[in-house]
């Protein structure tokens, strides 16, 4: 009696049986239900495949060093709204400064919305001002990749580097008209993600065309 469980409830809980986080009587009940329910056994297999595929999916692996350096610079900037334990005595000052911080935050947002300045020696091509609707993707290359290899990889998928690298190593690539459909972009991303020169490839936030 204690191990009986409705089919729907057991079915809902299967993902957590699969990931090993179901415990005690709940786990016993779901396992007991599985023994007599073929659809749940099929679903269990399906969820095991899903988990395996997700866990094997290559993680985005980019060095944290540059990113941490950026954070350090943000910490070094005056953060008047930050009330660290030692600074609590300055609450009045913090309140005053918070107004300024709100202004800084708004400015930050506006700056974020403005296209980023490229790093020195970065790409900036005609495609930046192209009016044509082109899909844009982000690409991060492996550290050892040369400029020639980079160009080759991108040309191979019918793309053109339009900006980058950012401080964090990201290039924005415009795909020509023949690769701008949703399925085509997915195909390009698939090819790039399997290229040993490429560490990451994904859809870009960069605005399209003249936006």
């Amino acid at each position, binding site marked *: 009696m204690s191990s009986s469980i409705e089919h729907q409830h057991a079915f809902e809980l299967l993902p957590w049986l699969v990931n090993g986080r179901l415990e005690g009587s709940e786990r016993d009940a779901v396992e007991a239900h599985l023994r007599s329910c073929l659809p749940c056994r099929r679903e269990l297999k399906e969820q095991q495949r*899903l988990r395996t595929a997700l866990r094997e999916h290559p993680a985005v692996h980019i060095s944290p060093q540059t990113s941490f350096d950026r954070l350090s610079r943000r910490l070094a900037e005056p953060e008047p709204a930050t009330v660290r334990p030692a600074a609590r005595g300055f609450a009045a000052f913090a309140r005053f400064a918070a107004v300024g911080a709100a202004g800084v935050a708004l400015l930050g947002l506006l700056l974020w919305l403005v296209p980023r300045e490229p790093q020195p020696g970065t790409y900036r091509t005609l495609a930046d001002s192209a009016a044509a609707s082109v899909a844009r993707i982000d690409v991060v290359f492996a550290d050892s990749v040369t400029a020639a290899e980079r160009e080759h990889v991108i040309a191979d998928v019918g793309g053109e580097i339009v900006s980058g690298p950012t401080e964090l190593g990201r290039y924005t690539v415009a795909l020509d008209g023949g690769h701008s459909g949703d399925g085509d972009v997915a195909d390009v991303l698939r090819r790039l993600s399997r290229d040993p020169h490429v560490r990451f490839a994904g859809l870009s936030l960069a605005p399209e065309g003249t936006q």
Partner: protein
Amino acid sequence: MKNMDEGLQIRPGRAKFSDDASDTLLLARIARGDRDALRELYTVYYHPLLRFIYRVTGQLELAQEGINDVMLVIWRSSESFGRRSTVATWIMGIAYRKALKLLEGSRRWTDRFASVDFDAAIERSEAAAEPTDDADLRDLLDQALRHLSPEHRAVVELTYFYGCSYDEIAVIANCPVNTVKTRMFHARAKLRKLVPKLGKDSPAT
């Protein structure tokens, strides 16, 4: 000083993202303004956060921005950690909220991809050549995940990549446990339609 790239592993599939006792100590040091402790925590959480925010937002730029937003919150409010959950759950909760906020802010640029017709996506998926290897399945899955809502993607990712219990996910997403189960249920149904291959035995098995 130790290079941050040394020994970095994302440790997929662990029930916990890291060791809670050592995370708690790090957080206590961070609350005292110890930047070395922040650096250590950053190293431990960088890749788990990068992947998670990337998975929820689908944008590398947002993921890279989001990590530092999360770390800034930790730096500023580590003393507010109430020990009602593990440190990892608390941090992933901050990441979840940041990811949704960043995504909301970027919607005007990403709607084109988010609004792709679901039926058309299923058609494409069915028309695609039978996957021949695990990499193909992962590619199909990658595309299919884009057709889930960010909230559904987060539950799938937290369950299967980070090994979270439904209770932990409820804390991270700040929603009732039943909502977690329902989101997972609908995400599974959608993935089953988009990736029929999930329901079939692979040639290798």
